[in-house]
């Protein structure tokens, strides 16, 4: 599974980081990327509204039980918790897959990868990669005192570390 690119969106759905790691996708203008990010942000929210009827009545109970089993007090060691219980988390097309991870603070990490392989394997792989990116983000972006929250990310160290992680030489 090759990783094509990574996008990071802030709470409002604005694109704050975009990077390509391997060739395979078209290069778009900066404006196009912004529109793309906004679209994904919107579809992510819509996806939670179109849950099938038979799931909807149970959603309160299901949500509750999910909360209980996933609570930190039950799984104290780091768990792949994603604040994405009903929103979109995966898109599959002929040429690429998109994995979404949303943190508790509303930041979305979007990974575009190649489509091959067994789906469930790829899902856990992608989730692990997204968690690692989140850790790098919290280190090199959040702890940079000159970085303004919700603004585009221009931190060289973050670029360096993510490139090291996603594009092994």
């Amino acid at each position, binding site marked *: 599974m090759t990783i094509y690119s990574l996008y990071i969106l802030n709470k409002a759905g604005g694109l704050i980081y975009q990077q390509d790691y391997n060739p395979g996708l078209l290069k778009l203008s900066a404006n196009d990327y912004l529109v793309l990010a906004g679209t994904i942000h919107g579809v992510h929210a819509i996806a939670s509204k179109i849950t099938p009827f038979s799931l909807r009545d149970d959603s309160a109970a299901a949500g509750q039980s999910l909360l209980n089993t996933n609570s930190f007090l039950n799984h104290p060691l780091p768990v792949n918790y994603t604040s994405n219980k009903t929103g979109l988390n995966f898109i599959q097309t*002929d040429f690429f897959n998109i994995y979404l991870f949303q943190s508790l603070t509303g930041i979305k990490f979007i990974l575009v990868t190649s489509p091959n392989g067994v789906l469930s394997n790829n899902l856990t792989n992608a989730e692990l990669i997204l968690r690692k990116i989140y850790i790098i983000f919290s280190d090199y972006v959040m702890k940079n005192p000159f970085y303004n929250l919700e603004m585009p990310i221009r931190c060289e160290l973050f670029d360096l570390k993510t490139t090291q992680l996603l594009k092994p030489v």
Partner: protein
Amino acid sequence: MIYSLWIFDRHCIIQQDPKAARPLVGGGTVNLNNDIDSAKLLFGALFSLRNIASKLTSNVNIIDNTSSDLDFQKQNYLRSFATQNYRAHYFETLSGLKFVLLTDPSIQDMQKHLHEIYTNFYVEYVAKNALSPVDFKPGELIGSEKFINSVDSYILSLSVT
């Protein structure tokens, strides 16, 4: 477990409303859950995702080895999208018909089933039916009972296996 099936025609009009198919209970309800809002949301989401898919790969050239002089521009089609609670499988024909199947997230590939619904049921009972319209008016739904029954039983047979 399969939750519902939607069919949109090329003008974004719902042809068939979702059937809440619960295989355990047996039998679905057709055209009853007339949730227009849900349909609009679903269509909107699909439309946006299709755009994303084609925007990111619209120039991908696939050279067909059998006809070496031609460059085929293969369009990138959306296959499915998923949340933690459900997965939506999407199949689109060149004529603009869109088939969407909502299932639980563990079911991974329904493309061939959607294709079967299209070729075996839609083409047979709706397209070939001289009395059913090709361009549906807004609010008009597929009324052909044969279509509805055969699709029902097909989907139920899928859910049981």
